[in-house]
């Protein structure tokens, strides 16, 4: 394994370094020997699959987690960050997509929040506050009215306000987690210009992203993590996308996915002109034994569509037909389940399983009709379906009575699957089926999806990751702003085509 440390060149001063960080949760190692070394005045990409340990490392660097062992070195001396505030004071600021701004107060107040608020004996010095806020916006070349409520701004402006606040706290290391997720192409260009400017002012920027094209356009160096370890740190100019992907995955990408099957021509699910809160006029069919992938950017309505199909959210128009049985509008989860539609939701920990409950209680939850008669539940039948599910899906646990919260992410996901598979669904909806799961379990889930399809189940799976979408599906539908923007056979799909549909540009190519 390559050493992650770089030779220290005198022209590069290291702003922040993490050395041999170990961190575990409930016996699972999230970080085992992670390293990262960020120089002043560089944009440093932190890459790795979901679950590789990137976000844990970021949380260690920003004082959110205390590492089990390892050291953090800032400007040449060892530091310990007891909490986020301490790290902030030391000039280390992480910006996450969602939070970062307070929508109900003005832009100026957002920028000069908390300890930055100039005051005399507790009275806010408004003039100084506005001057300070304007100063930071000027550094970013942004023209945002100071008096505006931050919640009224566009997403990119909100990001800029968050940047300005970081600058106001004199941030020396800025950590960005997927900053472009909700931005348009032009906004991304603006953002990059700002980031380059900050870099030239000597700020060290850690850039966490799944969008490799962006990394190659923007970043100076990259660090790749896998299974909690740092695998390599390299100049971006000396690397290429293929190498990065195979390093992230730890093997060639193709081996992860099983062979495609042959979908039948029997229609299993017909969706006609369905409207919801965000989704509009959705019509498609899915076949028996088919794996239908659904892609699109975050917020394009993918998850809402699945939730509508599963009866978990109301729809305002349209019909859903399973086989030849048309469901009544907004049937509710329990009727959708009876009709044969089951959902494995996006957020495992908040929507999929009850962490404090045992495996068998979780599995029983979706199978109450199957394990009860006349309102009384049968413990024997619960144990029975649990054992079968644990065996079929090879759930690694001490037994059916182990609380789900003690299992690894992959095994938790299998519990969600077992819970729904016990209903023997005709149509299985899966929202981000492999999010936060290690590579080994991912491969198992893909194989399982294939087996289910071969057995005649229709799988509809939403994924944000294009390689996954292409690898596991037979056919792919892409959504853009609530509507279906394109449909492709997976065998002929390329990331370029899919991305074009994702951005709603059916015919043109995307230039990054």
């Amino acid at each position, binding site marked *: 394994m390559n050493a992650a440390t770089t030779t220290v060149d005198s022209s590069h001063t290291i702003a922040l370094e993490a050395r041999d960080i170990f961190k575990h949760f*409930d*016996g*699972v*190692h999230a970080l085992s020997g992670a390293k990262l070394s960020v120089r002043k005045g560089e944009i440093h990409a932190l890459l790795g699959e979901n679950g590789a340990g990137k976000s844990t490392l970021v949380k260690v660097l920003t004082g959110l987690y205390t590492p089990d062992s390892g050291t953090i070195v800032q400007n040449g001396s060892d530091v310990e960050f007891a909490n986020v505030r301490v790290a902030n004071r030391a000039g280390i600021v992480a910006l996450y997509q969602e939070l970062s701004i307070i929508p109900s107060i003005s832009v100026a107040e957002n920028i000069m929040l908390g300890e930055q608020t100039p005051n005399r004996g507790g009275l806010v010095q408004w003039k100084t506050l506005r001057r300070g806020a304007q100063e930071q916006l000027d550094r970013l070349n942004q023209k945002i009215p100071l008096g505006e409520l931050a919640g009224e701004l566009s997403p990119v402006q909100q990001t800029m306000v968050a940047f300005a606040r970081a600058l106001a706290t004199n941030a020396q290391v800025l950590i960005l987690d997927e900053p472009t997720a909700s931005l348009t192409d032009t906004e991304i260009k603006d953002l990059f210009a700002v980031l380059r400017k900050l870099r030239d002012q000597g700020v060290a920027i850690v850039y966490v992203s799944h969008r490799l094209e962006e990394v190659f356009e923007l970043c100076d160096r990259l660090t790749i993590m896998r*299974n*909690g370890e740092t695998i390599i740190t390299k100049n971006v100019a000396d690397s290429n996308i293929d190498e990065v992907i195979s390093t992230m995955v730890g093997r060639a990408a193709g081996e992860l996915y099983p062979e495609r099957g042959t979908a039948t021509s029997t229609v299993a699910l017909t969706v006609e002109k369905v409207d919801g809160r965000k989704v509009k006029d959705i019509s498609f069919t899915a076949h028996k034994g088919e794996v239908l992938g659904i892609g699109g950017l975050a917020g394009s309505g993918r998850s809402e569509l699945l939730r509508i199909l*599963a009866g*978990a959210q109301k729809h305002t128009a349209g019909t859903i037909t399973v086989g030849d049985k048309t469901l009544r509008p907004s049937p*509710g*989860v*329990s009727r*959708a*389940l009876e009709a044969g539609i089951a*959902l494995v*939701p996006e957020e495992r920990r*908040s*929507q*999929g*399983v*009850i*962490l*404090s*409950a045992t495996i068998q*209680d*979780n599995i*029983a*939850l*979706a199978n*109450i009709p199957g394990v*009860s008669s006349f*309102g*009384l*539940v049968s413990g024997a039948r619960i144990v029975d379906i649990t054992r079968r599910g644990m065996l079929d899906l090879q759930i*690694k646990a*001490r037994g059916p009575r182990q*609380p789900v*919260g*003690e299992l*690894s992410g*992959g*095994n938790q996901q299998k519990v969600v699957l077992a*819970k729904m598979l016990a209903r023997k669904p005709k149509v299985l909806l899966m929202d981000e089926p492999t999010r936060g799961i*290690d590579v*080994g*379990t991912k491969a198992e889930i893909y194989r399982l999806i294939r087996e289910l399809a071969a057995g005649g189940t229709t799988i509809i799976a939403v994924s944000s990751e294009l390689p996954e979408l292409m690898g596991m599906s037979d056919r792919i539908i892409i959504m853009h702003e609530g509507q279906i923007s394109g449909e492709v056979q997976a065998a002929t799909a390329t990331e370029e085509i899919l991305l074009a549909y994702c951005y709603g540009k059916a015919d043109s190519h995307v230039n990054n």
Partner: protein
Amino acid sequence: MSTTNAPAKPGRSLGRTLLQGGTVIALLALIGFFFAMRPDVFLSFTNVKNILFQVSILAIIASAQTVVMVVGDFDLSLGAISSLAGAVAAALMLGGVPMWIAISVAAGVGLLIGLANGFLIAYLRLSAFVATLATMTSVVGLAYLVTAGTTLFSLPEGFNNLGQGKFLNVPLPVYIAIVISLIIWSILRFTTLGRSWSATGGNQEVARLSGVNVRRARLLAFTLAGVVSAIGGIILAARLGSASAVQGSDNMMFSVAAVFLGMTVIRSGMANLGGTMVGVTIIGVMSNGLNILGVNSYVQQVVTGLIIIAAVTLSSLKNRER
């Protein structure tokens, strides 16, 4: 990453065991302490019977509170409902209504208030705190109206027997409390309704996405709690032979305390009926023991508050362990 995680298995360390069994150990220690102080009195048959008699009403109301807390909510109005039910039953009987009809109407009043609570919380999405605080206020007002601000007494002999009568030298309320808690325990454990209650309390969204009718589950939990508290209040009126607008109100805080104590008894930290009964016993033993030692009853109230703090701290320590 998935294969070699042997340390994941929680070891049965001493600290963990103490934390786990802490509540039960505390109960045993209390009993030991009072026994040591007054060996002649404390564990005598008469006194044990006394303790059971004293906690029987609390046990009924705490059972009701357990149901609501299993669902992940709580109900501040249960004490007030019990007072109102006792007052309604008493007022009707004084007005010449036959005993069983008066009791049924009083229980029905509890059911309706519980239903209202459930509707406000599950369907109109008010927070349990706001909704039950508001109903508590109104219900106390109703109880004052029904009693005209006085204490109703000279209730029929047959009614008073429900609270004061004995079977095999053990007071009837003890039997009633045991039967009610056994019924609720069975509902929680053996019925689909009980399953959907604990699922809802575990994680509402997960339960909903699994096909559980979460709103109905919450509605029914509050409704059942209303009826059961009303029964508790009726028995209390029978035991005292009188009804006032506030006689059940102490039981609200004590019932929450009992359920909190009970949550520390089991590993998952969820509300559970067995644990609640341990909690009820702790409160009963303490109050009885302090009485025997001649400690002021206001001091007992102070101690109860401290016990709630201790119980909640204990359970949050446990959660941090996980």
